C-alpha cells in the first residue's frame, strides 16, 4: 500500500524495465475520452496499471482516492478480473500527480467525486488488466516457442494446454514488458466475470484497526514544524493587523506568519504549541462588506427568486402556466434547504516543503491533480519542480476534491521558511467555519389537477446558489448551472422519473458570499426532498395512495419504477405496518443509478422520531462489490439523515456560527436504523454508488413523518422544529 508512508511510496514507485529487483511495470496503452487523447497525442509507451514482482505480487495502480468508499478495492477488482491474476497477491498503490504529468496523464482523471471512480474508468482500467494479461501470455508463449493461442492464464499461472507446461506471471513479467502493446483488447462478457460482482474483502482494513494507518494528520517528516491557522471568519475578509510579539516568546513558537491576505499562522515545534499560541494571538480583521450578510438576508434574497420573472429552464413540456390557470384544483408549497458542512472526521490539513527548486506536498485529497495545480500556483514553480503525495483521507465527502485551500495555505507558509517541512492542521473550528458548504436552496412547487384529480401540471421553481458559478464558471451553459437540476433533467445521469403533461422546472440563481461546494450527493439532496415530498403532498391532495399516485406517472420510466416497486414490495407497502409504525417512500435517478427507499418510523410525543427500518434499493447497472455497496448505502443514510435532522450552518455578521460538533451534530449508533439493501443490478450501464442513495433517505422519512403526524415539515434541519431523532 502506498498510503502508509510517503517516503516508501516514492522509493517503491518504479517505472519501466530498469526497475530490476523491485518489480517491473508493464507497458499498457490506455484509451481515454477524446479530450484526454488529444492531450497525450504522440505519447511514448505508458507503463500504467500493473506491476508484477518476481514473487508474483501484483501491484495495481489506483488513480482515484480511497476515502472509505471502497474504490481502491473495487478498481483493483476491475483490473484483476481481466488480468486473471491471483487475487490473494494483489496490492495497490497510488501514482503521483507529478508522475502523471510527466507521463502525459497515463492514469487519466484523478478526481474522486461525483461517484465517478468506477463508472468513469471501468473501460480503461479493465483494458489495462486485459492488455497486461495478453502480454504476459505472449511472453510465455515466446519462451516456449508455441503459439499464444495455445496458452491461457488463470490465477497468475500461464498454461500451455497441449503440453501442460506452466509458468507464473512473476517469471515472465520482465519479458512481457518488452513486448509491443496489443491493440484494444476484447474484454470479458459480464457473464464471464469471476471477481467483479463478488464481495471480496477490502484491501485496506487491517491498518485501520491497529493505529498503523497514516492519515495526513499523522504525517511525520524529519525536521518538520507544525502550523495552526486562522483565516478571517468572514469569507472575503482580510487580516488588518496582528501582534506577533505577544506570542513569539511562548513555548515552541518559531514563526508567526501572514498567509495570503486573509489568514495568520503560528508555526511551532508541536501543533499543540502552535495552536495555543495562535489562540493567544491578537488579530484584527478587516471583515469587509460581507459582514452585513446574515441567514435572514440570504433567505430573503432566495424568497424573491421564487417568483422572479427570469429563471434558467432545465425541463419543460406543455404549458404549465395554462395548466395551473385552468386547474380544477391546485396546491402549492415552499421548501428550504440550509448550508451544511462536510465535517469529515479528519479536519483539513496539508504538509508542504518548499525550496526555490522544489515544492513537495503531502495531502489527503480527493483529486491529486487539483492538489498539484494548487501546489504549482502557490509555489510559483513549474510542474517538473513540484510533486504531490496522496495520503490516506479521513473522509472526504466532497470537501477535498475541487478545493485545496489548505494546500495553498501550507505552501504559502512553507515558502516563508524554505527547506523546512511544515504540517498545517486545521482545528475543527477552522474546518467548520471555512467549509465549502452545501448550497442553500428554496423551492416553490405548484401542482395542478383536473376535476378527476389527475395531475395536469407541475411547476418547480428553484431559487438559490450555484456551485458551478463559484467553482467552475466555464461549465455554465449561457449562465445556467446544469448541476442545480440533478434528478430533474429530461434525461442523462440524473433523469426526472415522471411524465407530467405540463411541466416546468427552472432555477432563479441567487448567489451569496458563503462559498458553496460539492457535498456528498450535491444538489440531489434538496431536489429529492422537494420533489418526492411534494409528490406525496399531491397524492394526498388527490386523495390517492402515494405509491399508486407515483406509479401512474411512471409508465415511461421503467427503471425508476423497478426500484420503487422493489422497496414497496419488500417493506410490505399496502399491508398493515406494525402498530404505531408509519411508512414513507422516495425514489430518484442519481449519478446514473436508480435508487429508492421506504422508511418505517414511529413518532413519540409528536416530535421524537425513531426510524426502525429503511428498505433501500439501487440499480447501479453493474455491482462490483455488493458488500461494499451495502455499506455505502447505509453510510450515505447516516450522512443524509444527520443533515436532515441536525445540521445547519447559519450566517451571522457574515460568518458561520457553528464551530464544532456541539452545535453541528452527527448521528450516533443509537439513532441508526436498520438498513436493508436491495442491490438489483440490471446490467448494461455503470451507475455510481457512493452518493446516489443518500438523497432518498430524507424524503422517505419526511413522508413517513407526515403519515404518522399529518404534519408537513418544509424547512430543515428538523431540530429547528423541535424534532429529534431518537
Amino acid at each position, binding site marked *: 500500500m502506498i498510503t502508509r508512508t510517503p517516503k516508501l511510496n516514492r522509493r517503491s514507485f518504479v517505472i519501466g524495465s530498469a526497475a530490476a529487483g523491485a518489480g517491473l511495470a508493464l507497458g499498457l496503452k490506455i484509451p481515454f475520452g477524446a479530450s484526454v487523447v488529444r492531450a497525450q497525442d504522440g505519447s511514448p509507451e505508458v507503463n500504467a496499471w500493473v506491476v508484477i514482482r518476481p514473487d508474483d505480487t501484483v501491484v495495481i495502480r489506483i488513480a482515484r482516492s480511497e*476515502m*472509505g*468508499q*471502497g474504490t481502491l478495492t473495487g478498481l483493483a477488482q476491475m483490473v484483476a478480473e481481466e488480468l486473471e491474476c491471483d487475487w490473494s497477491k494483489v496490492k495497490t498503490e497510488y501514482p503521483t500527480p507529478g508522475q502523471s504529468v510527466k507521463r502525459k496523464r497515463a492514469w487519466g482523471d484523478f478526481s474522486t467525486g461525483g461517484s465517478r471512480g468506477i463508472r468513469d474508468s471501468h473501460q480503461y482500467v479493465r483494458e489495462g488488466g486485459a492488455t497486461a494479461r495478453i502480454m504476459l501470455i505472449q511472453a510465455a508463449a515466446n519462451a516456449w516457442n508455441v503459439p499464444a493461442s495455445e496458452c491461457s492464464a488463470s490465477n497468475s499461472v500461464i498454461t500451455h494446454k497441449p503440453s501442460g507446461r506452466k509458468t507464473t506471471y512473476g517469471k515472465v513479467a520482465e519479458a512481457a514488458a518488452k513486448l509491443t502493446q496489443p491493440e484494444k483488447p476484447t474484454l470479458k462478457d459480464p457473464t464471464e466475470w469471476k471477481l467483479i460482482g463478488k464481495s471480496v*474483502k*477490502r484491501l*485496506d*482494513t*487491517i*491498518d*485501520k*484497526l*491497529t*493505529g*498503523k*494507518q*497514516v*492519515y495526513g*494528520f*499523522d504525517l*511525520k517528516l524529519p525536521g518538520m514544524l*507544525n502550523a495552526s491557522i486562522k483565516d478571517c471568519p468572514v469569507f472575503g475578509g482580510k487580516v488588518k493587523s496582528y501582534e506577533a510579539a505577544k506570542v513569539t516568546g511562548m*513555548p515552541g513558537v518559531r514563526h508567526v506568519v501572514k498567509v495570503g491576505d486573509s489568514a495568520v499562522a503560528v508555526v511551532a515545534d*508541536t*501543533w*499543540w504549541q502552535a495552536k495555543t499560541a495562535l489562540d493567544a494571538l491578537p488579530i484584527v480583521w478587516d471583515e469587509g462588506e460581507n459582514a452585513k450578510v446574515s441567514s435572514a438576508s440570504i433567505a430573503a434574497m432566495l424568497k424573491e427568486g421564487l417568483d422572479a420573472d427570469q429563471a434558467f429552464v432545465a425541463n419543460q413540456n406543455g404549458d404549465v402556466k395554462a395548466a395551473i390557470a385552468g386547474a380544477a384544483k391546485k396546491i402549492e408549497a415552499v421548501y428550504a434547504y440550509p448550508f451544511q458542512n462536510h*465535517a*469529515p*472526521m*479528519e*479536519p483539513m490539513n496539508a504538509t508542504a516543503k518548499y525550496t526555490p527548486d522544489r515544492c513537495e506536498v503531502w495531502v489527503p485529497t480527493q483529486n491529486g491533480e487539483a492538489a498539484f495545480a494548487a501546489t504549482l500556483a502557490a509555489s510559483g514553480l513549474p510542474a517538473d519542480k513540484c510533486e504531490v503525495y496522496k495520503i*490516506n*483521507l*479521513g*473522509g*472526504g*465527502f466532497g470537501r477535498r476534491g475541487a478545493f485545496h485551500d489548505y494546500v495553498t495555505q501550507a505552501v504559502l507558509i512553507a515558502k516563508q521558511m524554505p527547506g523546512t517541512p511544515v504540517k498545517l*492542521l486545521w*482545528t*475543527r473550528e477552522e474546518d467548520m467555519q471555512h467549509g465549502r458548504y452545501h448550497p442553500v436552496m428554496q423551492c416553490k412547487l405548484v401542482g395542478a389537477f383536473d376535476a378527476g384529480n389527475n395531475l395536469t401540471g407541475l411547476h418547480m421553481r428553484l431559487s438559490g446558489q450555484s456551485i458551478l458559478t463559484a467553482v467552475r464558471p466555464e461549465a455554465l451553459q449561457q449562465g445556467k448551472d446544469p448541476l442545480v437540476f440533478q434528478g430533474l433533467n429530461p434525461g442523462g445521469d440524473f433523469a426526472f422519473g415522471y411524465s407530467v403533461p405540463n411541466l416546468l422546472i427552472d432555477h432563479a440563481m441567487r448567489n451569496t458570499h458563503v462559498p458553496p461546494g460539492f457535498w456528498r450527493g450535491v444538489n440531489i439532496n434538496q431536489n429529492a426532498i422537494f420533489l418526492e415530498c411534494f409528490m406525496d403532498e399531491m397524492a394526498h391532495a388527490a386523495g390517492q395512495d402515494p405509491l399508486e399516485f407515483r406509479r401512474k406517472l411512471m409508465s415511461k420510466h421503467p427503471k425508476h419504477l423497478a426500484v420503487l416497486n422493489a422497496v414497496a414490495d419488500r417493506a410490505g407497502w399496502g399491508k398493515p405496518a406494525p402498530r404505531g409504525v408509519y411508512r414513507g417512500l422516495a425514489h430518484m435517478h442519481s449519478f446514473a443509478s436508480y435508487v429508492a427507499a421506504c422508511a418505517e418510523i414511529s413518532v413519540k410525543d409528536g416530535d421524537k422520531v425513531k426510524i426502525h427500518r429503511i428498505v433501500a434499493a439501487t440499480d447501479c447497472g453493474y455491482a462490483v462489490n455488493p*458488500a461494499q455497496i451495502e*455499506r455505502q448505502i*447505509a*453510510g*450515505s*443514510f*447516516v*450522512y443524509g439523515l*444527520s443533515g436532515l435532522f441536525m445540521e445547519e450552518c447559519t450566517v451571522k455578521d457574515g460568518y458561520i456560527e457553528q464551530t*464544532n*460538533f*456541539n452545535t453541528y451534530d*452527527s*448521528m*450516533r*449508533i*443509537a439513532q*441508526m436504523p*436498520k*438498513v436493508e439493501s436491495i442491490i438489483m443490478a440490471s446490467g448494461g450501464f455503470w451507475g455510481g454508488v457512493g452518493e446516489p442513495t443518500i438523497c432518498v433517505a430524507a424524503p422517505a422519512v419526511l413522508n413517513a413523518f407526515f403519515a404518522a403526524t399529518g404534519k408537513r415539515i418544509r424547512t430543515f434541519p428538523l431540530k429547528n422544529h423541535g424534532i429529534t431523532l431518537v
Partner: protein
Amino acid sequence: MARLTINGKTLEVNVNPSTPLLWAIREQVGLTGTKYGCGIAQCGACTVHLDGAAVRSCVLPVAAAEGKKITTIEGLANGAALNKVQKAWLDHEVPQCGYCQSGMIMAVAALLKEKPKPTDADIDARITNICRCGTFQQVREAIHAAAKA
C-alpha cells in the same frame, strides 16, 4: 515534564501539564493512532483507556493521567495477536475511512470489559462516537460478534 505509562512503557514527556493527553500521545510519544476530531470531547476519535476505562483524551490534561495506566490503540493487541474487538472489526469489515475507528474500537473494548455481553441498549447508551462514514450497522454487528468470541 510529565511521567506517563503508555502501553506498558513509562516515559518522561516534556510538556506543559495542561497539554491535553491526546497531543502528548501524538506529538511527544509519537503514537498517532489516537485521533483528533473535535478537541471538545464530542466525537470520541481520541478515546484511550485510563486504568482500563475509556476516556476522551482531547480534554484530559496530561497531569491527570500521571500515575495511571494508559492504553492506546497501538497497545490493544497482544503483540501480533489482535484483540477480539479488532478481530471482529476485521471479520465484519467495519471501517470505511477508518479515521474514527481507533476511538470506536477503544470505546467498545472498554464496554466489553465492563459488560461482556452488552445488549443493544447498552451499546446505544455507551457508544457515542461519531462516524461520518456511517459504519454503525457493522459496528453493532461486530460488537455482538466480539462479545461471543
